[in-house]
């Protein structure tokens, strides 16, 4: 069965410093992995996705994630945090096959201090 574990429920960084949001996955096959962002009182927005092409995936707003099979990790990074990055971030794995639905991690709340 597929699952994701977000290792931090809350991450706080200063504006201009790097962001690291950690995610480990479990899958019985090569998974599709995603990061979604949810700003306060807003819907979910797709940041980036990994679907077995390049292991380093670039997304919107300067975010990127690296798929590491040996570590079963898919950590999200950004070189320099901006105040507008403050939001909830979800690491997600696809159940795949004919079911097609997504399994969400518990989320990491990112705070950005001025």
């Amino acid at each position: 069965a597929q699952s994701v574990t977000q290792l931090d429920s809350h991450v706080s960084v200063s504006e201009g410093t790097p962001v690291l949001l950690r995610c480990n996955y479990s899958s019985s096959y090569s998974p599709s992995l995603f990061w979604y962002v949810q700003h306060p009182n807003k819907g979910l927005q797709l940041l980036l996705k990994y679907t077995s092409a390049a292991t380093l995936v670039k997304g919107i707003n300067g975010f990127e994630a690296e798929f590491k099979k040996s570590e079963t990790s898919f950590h999200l990074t950004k070189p320099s945090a901006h105040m507008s990055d403050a939001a909830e971030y979800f690491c997600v794995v696809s159940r795949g096959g004919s079911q097609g639905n997504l399994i969400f991690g518990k989320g990491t709340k990112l705070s950005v201090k001025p």
Partner: protein
Amino acid sequence: SAVISQKPSRDICQRGTSLTIQCQVDSQVTMMFWYRQQPGQSLTLIATANQGSEATYESGFVIDKFPISRPNLTFSTLTVSNMSPEDSSIYLCSVEGGSDTQYFGPGTRLTVL
């Protein structure tokens, strides 16, 4: 990516009543999904709705409580029946976008008193 709208955006309802949430997408899609996000929690899949067939419910969710309609390839409704305060959540619909990707609507914020 698909453009998805939901109605209502929010509602406050009384215990014991029912609310129907609408989800409209700007293109034809085969698979639509309904999720629940309880306060401070992550998203949990309620059911998958394919046009022309009965919705498939996840463990812990039943049709009597969350009936779903899927009359065509661009529209679906989710009804929350006989509501209790525990049903207070954000309800989101999503659609398949290829390569296992899903695109989400803005959500319906439901408060049950």
